[in-house]
Protein backbone atom coordinates (compact mmCIF):
# COMPACT_ATOMS: atom_id res chain seq x y z
CA UNK A 1 0.00 0.00 0.00
CA UNK A 2 1.34 3.47 -0.86
CA UNK A 3 2.13 5.76 2.03
CA UNK A 4 2.02 9.54 2.34
CA UNK A 5 5.79 9.54 1.95
CA UNK A 6 5.44 7.60 -1.32
CA UNK A 7 3.03 10.24 -2.59
CA UNK A 8 5.31 13.10 -1.55
CA UNK A 9 8.26 11.31 -3.17
CA UNK A 10 6.34 10.97 -6.41
CA UNK A 11 5.34 14.63 -6.57
CA UNK A 12 8.88 15.71 -5.72
CA UNK A 13 9.98 13.65 -8.72
CA UNK A 14 7.39 15.37 -10.91
CA UNK A 15 8.53 18.80 -9.76
CA UNK A 16 12.21 17.92 -10.23
CA UNK A 17 11.47 16.78 -13.78
CA UNK A 18 9.56 19.96 -14.56
CA UNK A 19 12.47 22.03 -13.26
CA UNK A 20 14.91 20.04 -15.40
CA UNK A 21 12.80 20.79 -18.49
CA UNK A 22 12.60 24.49 -17.58
CA UNK A 23 16.38 24.79 -17.17
CA UNK A 24 17.07 22.91 -20.41
CA UNK A 25 14.66 25.08 -22.41
CA UNK A 26 16.33 28.20 -21.07
CA UNK A 27 19.75 26.84 -22.03
CA UNK A 28 18.42 26.19 -25.55
CA UNK A 29 16.90 29.65 -25.74
CA UNK A 30 20.22 31.23 -24.79
CA UNK A 31 22.02 29.20 -27.46
CA UNK A 32 19.47 30.23 -30.11
CA UNK A 33 19.93 33.90 -29.26
CA UNK A 34 23.66 33.72 -30.03
CA UNK A 35 24.26 36.45 -32.60
CA UNK A 36 26.68 34.30 -34.61
CA UNK A 37 24.06 31.64 -35.13
CA UNK A 38 21.43 34.21 -35.93
CA UNK A 39 23.72 35.60 -38.60
CA UNK A 40 24.28 32.13 -40.03
CA UNK A 41 20.56 31.48 -40.18
CA UNK A 42 20.01 34.75 -42.00
CA UNK A 43 22.76 34.01 -44.52
CA UNK A 44 21.17 30.75 -45.60
CA UNK A 45 17.74 32.08 -46.37
CA UNK A 46 17.41 33.84 -49.73
CA UNK A 47 14.21 35.76 -49.21
CA UNK A 48 14.69 38.86 -46.96
CA UNK A 49 11.21 38.52 -45.52
CA UNK A 50 11.93 34.87 -44.56
CA UNK A 51 15.19 35.88 -42.79
CA UNK A 52 13.48 37.89 -40.10
CA UNK A 53 10.31 35.80 -40.09
CA UNK A 54 12.23 32.56 -39.55
CA UNK A 55 14.35 34.01 -36.77
CA UNK A 56 11.38 35.63 -35.08
CA UNK A 57 9.43 32.38 -35.44
CA UNK A 58 12.18 30.34 -33.81
CA UNK A 59 12.64 32.69 -30.89
CA UNK A 60 8.91 33.26 -30.49
CA UNK A 61 8.15 29.55 -30.44
CA UNK A 62 10.85 28.84 -27.87
CA UNK A 63 9.70 31.74 -25.73
CA UNK A 64 6.15 30.36 -25.84
CA UNK A 65 7.31 26.89 -24.81
CA UNK A 66 9.33 28.36 -21.93
CA UNK A 67 6.30 30.36 -20.79
CA UNK A 68 4.06 27.29 -20.83
CA UNK A 69 6.57 25.20 -18.90
CA UNK A 70 7.02 28.02 -16.37
CA UNK A 71 3.28 28.35 -15.86
CA UNK A 72 2.79 24.60 -15.50
CA UNK A 73 5.60 24.35 -12.96
CA UNK A 74 4.29 27.33 -11.01
CA UNK A 75 0.77 25.92 -10.94
CA UNK A 76 1.68 22.44 -9.83
CA UNK A 77 4.22 23.68 -7.31
CA UNK A 78 1.71 25.99 -5.58
CA UNK A 79 -0.95 23.35 -5.67
CA UNK A 80 1.27 20.64 -4.22
CA UNK A 81 2.55 22.96 -1.50
CA UNK A 82 -1.08 23.32 -0.46
CA UNK A 83 -1.81 19.60 -0.16
CA UNK A 84 1.50 18.13 0.98
CA UNK A 85 1.93 17.63 4.74
CA UNK A 86 3.54 20.68 6.35
CA UNK A 87 7.21 20.42 7.17
CA UNK A 88 9.19 22.31 9.76
CA UNK A 89 10.81 24.20 6.90
CA UNK A 90 7.59 25.49 5.32
CA UNK A 91 6.01 26.33 8.66
CA UNK A 92 9.01 28.45 9.68
CA UNK A 93 9.12 30.50 6.47
CA UNK A 94 8.18 34.11 6.86
CA UNK A 95 7.19 34.75 3.25
CA UNK A 96 5.53 32.79 0.47
CA UNK A 97 8.02 31.80 -2.21
CA UNK A 98 7.49 32.30 -5.92
CA UNK A 99 8.47 29.22 -7.95
CA UNK A 100 10.90 31.03 -10.29
CA UNK A 101 13.79 29.18 -11.92
CA UNK A 102 17.33 30.41 -12.38
CA UNK A 103 20.98 29.83 -11.55
CA UNK A 104 23.05 30.84 -8.54
CA UNK A 105 26.65 30.84 -7.43
CA UNK A 106 27.28 30.21 -3.73
CA UNK A 107 30.62 30.99 -2.12
CA UNK A 108 31.30 29.67 1.38
CA UNK A 109 32.33 32.75 3.38
CA UNK A 110 34.82 30.75 5.45
CA UNK A 111 36.33 28.19 3.12
CA UNK A 112 35.85 30.03 -0.18
CA UNK A 113 34.46 26.90 -1.79
CA UNK A 114 32.16 27.72 -4.70
CA UNK A 115 29.03 25.88 -5.72
CA UNK A 116 27.04 26.41 -8.90
CA UNK A 117 23.43 25.56 -8.16
CA UNK A 118 19.95 25.96 -9.64
CA UNK A 119 17.24 28.15 -8.12
CA UNK A 120 13.77 26.73 -7.73
CA UNK A 121 11.93 29.47 -5.83
CA UNK A 122 12.51 32.84 -4.19
CA UNK A 123 11.04 35.31 -1.72
CA UNK A 124 12.23 38.53 -0.09
CA UNK A 125 13.65 36.46 2.77
CA UNK A 126 15.17 33.45 1.06
CA UNK A 127 15.80 31.22 -1.92
CA UNK A 128 15.25 27.54 -2.62
CA UNK A 129 18.07 25.75 -4.38
CA UNK A 130 18.65 22.45 -6.15
CA UNK A 131 21.95 20.63 -6.69
CA UNK A 132 23.37 17.24 -7.65
CA UNK A 133 25.39 17.06 -4.41
CA UNK A 134 24.71 17.96 -0.80
CA UNK A 135 26.07 21.31 0.37
CA UNK A 136 27.14 21.90 4.01
CA UNK A 137 24.23 23.15 6.12
CA UNK A 138 24.46 25.91 8.73
CA UNK A 139 27.17 27.84 6.90
CA UNK A 140 26.96 31.32 5.42
CA UNK A 141 27.41 31.94 1.72
CA UNK A 142 27.68 34.94 -0.56
CA UNK A 143 25.17 34.49 -3.33
CA UNK A 144 24.83 35.69 -6.90
CA UNK A 145 21.34 34.81 -8.08
CA UNK A 146 20.30 35.11 -11.70
CA UNK A 147 16.62 34.36 -12.28
CA UNK A 148 15.62 33.61 -15.88
CA UNK A 149 12.82 36.14 -15.74
CA UNK A 150 14.95 39.03 -14.48
CA UNK A 151 17.80 40.80 -16.23
CA UNK A 152 19.71 41.79 -13.08
CA UNK A 153 21.77 39.61 -10.78
CA UNK A 154 20.82 39.63 -7.10
CA UNK A 155 23.65 39.64 -4.58
CA UNK A 156 22.92 38.43 -1.06
CA UNK A 157 24.48 36.85 1.98
CA UNK A 158 22.53 33.87 3.26
CA UNK A 159 22.69 30.87 5.53
CA UNK A 160 21.87 27.40 4.23
CA UNK A 161 19.23 26.26 6.70
CA UNK A 162 18.35 22.80 5.39
CA UNK A 163 19.16 20.27 2.67
CA UNK A 164 17.25 17.14 1.69
CA UNK A 165 17.76 14.47 -0.97
CA UNK A 166 14.33 14.35 -2.60
CA UNK A 167 15.11 11.78 -5.26
CA UNK A 168 18.41 9.86 -5.64
CA UNK A 169 21.06 12.31 -6.80
CA UNK A 170 18.91 15.41 -6.44
CA UNK A 171 19.19 17.63 -3.36
CA UNK A 172 17.03 20.62 -2.55
CA UNK A 173 17.69 23.16 0.18
CA UNK A 174 16.61 26.44 1.70
CA UNK A 175 18.72 29.55 2.18
CA UNK A 176 17.65 32.36 4.48
CA UNK A 177 18.96 35.77 3.46
CA UNK A 178 20.99 37.67 6.03
CA UNK A 179 22.10 40.74 4.06
CA UNK A 180 21.54 42.62 0.85
CA UNK A 181 24.62 43.49 -1.18
CA UNK A 182 22.88 45.41 -3.97
Amino acid sequence: MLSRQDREQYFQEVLAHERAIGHKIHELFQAMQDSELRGSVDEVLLDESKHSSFSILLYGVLQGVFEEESQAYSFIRKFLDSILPGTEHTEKRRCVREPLLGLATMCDLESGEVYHVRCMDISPTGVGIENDKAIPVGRSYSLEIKLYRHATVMERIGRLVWVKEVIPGTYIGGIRFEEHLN
Partner: protein
Amino acid sequence: MDKKQNIIRLLDECLKLEDEAIPLYTKYLEDPEFFEDVSPQDVDRVKKALMTLVQDSRSHRRIFESLQIKVKETFKDAQ
Protein backbone atom coordinates in the same frame (compact mmCIF):
# COMPACT_ATOMS: atom_id res chain seq x y z
CA MET B 1 31.69 22.08 -29.72
CA ASP B 2 30.31 23.90 -32.81
CA LYS B 3 27.49 26.19 -31.70
CA LYS B 4 25.11 24.78 -34.26
CA GLN B 5 25.83 21.23 -33.11
CA ASN B 6 25.26 22.47 -29.57
CA ILE B 7 21.74 23.55 -30.49
CA ILE B 8 20.98 20.20 -32.08
CA ARG B 9 22.31 18.49 -28.94
CA LEU B 10 20.15 20.70 -26.71
CA LEU B 11 17.08 19.92 -28.81
CA ASP B 12 17.86 16.19 -28.44
CA GLU B 13 18.04 16.65 -24.67
CA CYS B 14 14.74 18.55 -24.61
CA LEU B 15 13.10 15.74 -26.57
CA LYS B 16 14.48 13.14 -24.18
CA LEU B 17 13.14 15.05 -21.17
CA GLU B 18 9.68 15.38 -22.71
CA ASP B 19 9.67 11.65 -23.57
CA GLU B 20 10.53 10.80 -19.96
CA ALA B 21 7.87 13.19 -18.65
CA ILE B 22 4.79 11.49 -20.09
CA PRO B 23 5.09 8.08 -18.37
CA LEU B 24 6.07 9.84 -15.14
CA TYR B 25 3.05 12.14 -15.14
CA THR B 26 0.60 9.35 -16.07
CA LYS B 27 2.09 6.79 -13.66
CA TYR B 28 -0.66 6.94 -11.04
CA LEU B 29 -3.51 8.61 -12.89
CA GLU B 30 -5.60 5.42 -13.01
CA ASP B 31 -4.44 4.04 -9.67
CA PRO B 32 -7.20 4.44 -7.05
CA GLU B 33 -4.86 3.27 -4.27
CA PHE B 34 -2.59 6.25 -4.90
CA PHE B 35 -5.39 8.70 -4.06
CA GLU B 36 -6.98 6.59 -1.34
CA ASP B 37 -6.90 9.13 1.50
CA VAL B 38 -7.13 12.28 -0.61
CA SER B 39 -10.35 14.30 -0.85
CA PRO B 40 -12.29 13.89 -4.14
CA GLN B 41 -11.82 17.59 -4.86
CA ASP B 42 -8.04 17.34 -4.48
CA VAL B 43 -7.95 14.15 -6.57
CA ASP B 44 -9.72 15.99 -9.37
CA ARG B 45 -7.34 18.94 -9.16
CA VAL B 46 -4.25 16.77 -9.12
CA LYS B 47 -5.38 14.71 -12.09
CA LYS B 48 -6.21 17.82 -14.09
CA ALA B 49 -2.81 19.32 -13.28
CA LEU B 50 -0.99 16.15 -14.32
CA MET B 51 -3.01 15.86 -17.54
CA THR B 52 -2.16 19.47 -18.36
CA LEU B 53 1.51 18.60 -17.96
CA VAL B 54 1.07 15.56 -20.21
CA GLN B 55 -0.66 17.57 -22.93
CA ASP B 56 1.98 20.28 -22.72
CA SER B 57 4.74 17.66 -23.01
CA ARG B 58 3.19 16.21 -26.16
CA SER B 59 2.79 19.64 -27.69
CA HIS B 60 6.33 20.68 -26.77
CA ARG B 61 7.70 17.45 -28.16
CA ARG B 62 6.19 18.26 -31.55
CA ILE B 63 7.66 21.75 -31.40
CA PHE B 64 11.15 20.48 -30.58
CA GLU B 65 10.97 17.91 -33.40
CA SER B 66 9.96 20.61 -35.89
CA LEU B 67 12.72 22.91 -34.67
CA GLN B 68 15.25 20.13 -35.01
CA ILE B 69 14.26 19.48 -38.60
CA LYS B 70 14.38 23.20 -39.44
CA VAL B 71 17.76 23.70 -37.79
CA LYS B 72 19.29 20.67 -39.54
CA GLU B 73 17.89 21.77 -42.90
CA THR B 74 19.22 25.29 -42.39
CA PHE B 75 22.71 24.07 -41.58
CA LYS B 76 22.66 21.60 -44.49
CA ASP B 77 21.86 24.44 -46.90
CA ALA B 78 24.70 26.50 -45.48
CA GLN B 79 27.30 23.84 -46.32
